């Protein structure tokens, strides 16, 4: 893997009169409450180490007060750390002077805010063009570019309105296009969708995912909502009381929560919506590759299974049962594979969300074949595997203890 785009190491943030003076105690592992009681300083972040790759959506999640909004403000130094290193594209952000920092903010990173942070005295299009204005771009050019972004997020026709005239979702679209308009490679999103109602929120999530497919930005996304994190995140870091408790891909977090805190989070999540077929499928055990029906029947018999997936050089063909093969061999009029032999079984895509394919899985007596867009057989999805997802969600903690013990 290439060098990470953003690298944060050993980051500490202490709030108070003289943060440096309490650093020693914090490093020795004194708890947040003790530090507060003894020195009247608040530990905001403690020994944060993060690496973010180019082009990924990295979600930092935690409850309110966990320090997530403080953390994201360190990326562009809206807040200065007490100690630690922040590298972006090989630039040590901590070493930048005021002027260089302004340049850095203008070109490398842009930000979307929870309560939008729009300027009420400017029209929508002027708001979107703000980043370019700060950079010193001429008015006609920047307005033209801003207009393009407004069209992209679906706000055509609103350009001369003022933010107060727009709904919350529309305002955040303005915030998003303002951030995209500067062409910065890194997008910081501080609880960008938290202030929106659920329907608009999921609409915005879809739009973000859709945009990301085209733009391939590096997005740092803050949220307190695990469903949201699982939905849009390529990787997720979970923050608790200023400490990182777990980092990983969504299904790593879902399937192997690092501690009780994460587990408590994961418990309420709709796993069927968060997990994809890929994460629960098994490699296809029973496959036959024969060209003719007779060969196929031979292979089938050696598999000791009553059905199998038929795969040829052109990829996945269909599901055949021993019974239908036998019939075909017995019937002289049929000499080759035809559609009649295959069972009617729907194939599912590896990146489909479990929730969407539950009906197919449950109504079919065979394990569903998992076939990618090129037609290759990737695996099979057992009914029991899908059922397990729900079982795990509602699992009794005591049962789990037993499981661990055994």
């Amino acid at each position: 893997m290439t060098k990470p785009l953003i690298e944060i190491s050993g980051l500490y943030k202490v709030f108070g009169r003289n943060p440096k003076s309490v650093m020693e105690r914090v490093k020795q592992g004194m708890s947040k409450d003790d530090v507060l009681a003894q020195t009247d300083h608040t530990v905001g972040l403690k020994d944060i180490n993060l690496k973010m790759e180019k082009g990924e959506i990295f979600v930092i999640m935690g409850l309110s007060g966990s320090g997530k909004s403080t953390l994201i403000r360190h990326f562009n130094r809206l807040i200065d750390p007490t100690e630690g290193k922040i590298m972006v594209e090989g630039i040590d952000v901590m070493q930048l002077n005021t002027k260089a920092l302004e340049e850095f903010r203008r070109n490398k990173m842009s930000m979307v805010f929870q309560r939008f942070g729009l300027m009420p005295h400017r029209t929508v299009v002027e708001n979107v063009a703000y980043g370019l204005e700060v950079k010193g771009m001429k008015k006609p050019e920047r307005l033209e570019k801003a207009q393009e972004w407004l069209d992209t997020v679906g706000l055509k026709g609103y350009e001369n309105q003022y933010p107060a005239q727009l709904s919350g979702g529309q305002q955040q679209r303005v915030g998003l296009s303002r951030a995209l308009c500067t062409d910065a490679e890194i997008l910081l999103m501080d609880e960008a969708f938290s202030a929106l109602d659920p329907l608009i929120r999921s609409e915005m999530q879809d739009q973000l995912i859709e945009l990301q497919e085209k733009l391939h930005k590096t997005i740092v996304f803050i949220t307190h909502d695990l469903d949201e994190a699982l939905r849009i995140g390529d990787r997720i870091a979970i923050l608790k009381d200023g400490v990182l408790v777990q980092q990983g891909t969504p299904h790593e977090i879902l399937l192997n929560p690092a501690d009780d805190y994460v587990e408590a989070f994961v418990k309420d999540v709709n796993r069927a919506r968060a997990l994809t077929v890929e994460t629960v499928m098994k490699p296809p055990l029973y496959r036959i590759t024969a060209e003719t029906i007779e060969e196929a029947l031979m292979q089938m018999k050696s598999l000791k299974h009553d059905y199998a997936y038929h795969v040829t050089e052109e990829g996945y063909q269909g599901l055949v049962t021993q019974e239908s093969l036998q019939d075909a061999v017995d019937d002289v009029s049929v000499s080759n594979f035809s559609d009649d032999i295959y069972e009617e079984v729907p194939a599912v895509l590896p990146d489909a969300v479990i929730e969407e394919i539950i009906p197919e899985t449950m109504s079919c007596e065979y394990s569903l074949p998992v076939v990618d867009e090129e037609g290759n057989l990737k695996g099979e999805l057992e009914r029991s595997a899908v059922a397990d997802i729900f079982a795990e969600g509602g699992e009794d903690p005591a049962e789990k203890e037993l499981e661990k013990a055994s």
Partner: protein
Amino acid sequence: MADSNWLTSFPEMERSDLRAIKKALDGAYREFSREYGEMIESFFDPLLSFLVWFEKLLISTPWFIVVAVCTALVYLASRSWKLSLGCVASLLLIGYFGMWEDTMRTLSIITVCTMVSIILGIPIGIAMARSNRVQSIVTPMLDIMQTMPAFVYLIPVVMLLGIGKIPGLIAVVIYAIPPVIRLTNLGIRLVDKEVLEAATAFGANRGQRLWGVQLPLAMPTIMAGINQTIMMALSMVVIASMIGVKGLGQPVLKSITNQYFTLGLLNGFAIVALAILFDRASQAYAKRTNAHLGDFKHD
């Protein structure tokens, strides 16, 4: 302590000591004003000549042109026919009752005082908003300026600069400047943190933040401060007339000493009419230009 009955009467300082202190301070200040008075006066010369020029301009311009210009300004600011009609009517009445020249003099000094207050006050307000230390120094000074009886600070000003327009102007500005300073400070401090943070995050420097975000968003509050400043300047006109500022204040002063009830009332009404015009026009202007700032909290 000579007296032993300090229980019944306050243990005051010796009269002779107090007299010595007064004498020393008065003497020192008199020395100072003799030494530097002229220099300070010449410092204000450009302002004085502007004031004189502006007053002459208002008085020598034919009255109907002045009425037309004032009405046009009021209309441009407020876009209200009612207010513009009120402006015409009140100016005509003022002229008809023989107070035209005094009103023009008052108008000129009020205009200049307001301009000086804005030019000095807004930067001071900005400095206060930027630094808590500046705020903690300036705030008590503003308290003194607003509560100290105007007559008291007239004394040193008159000692230093004599009687005339400039001392009058200084007195009016001292009295009228606090609101614009206070409300500029307040307005900037009340600017939504997230909006300011957004500007910073997009790489805006101090100047871009000030002109692009802080001042425009603080404008309604600053306008309220300017409005208050104008009102206070007008109310100071009578007191300023005691040190030789000509205008509507002088007839009022004359009617107090001679008990001319009607004269006082007429000039008083003229001041009120000016005040209402200034107030309504500037408020309507502020309201109109900041209309879309009003209901930002949408849902």
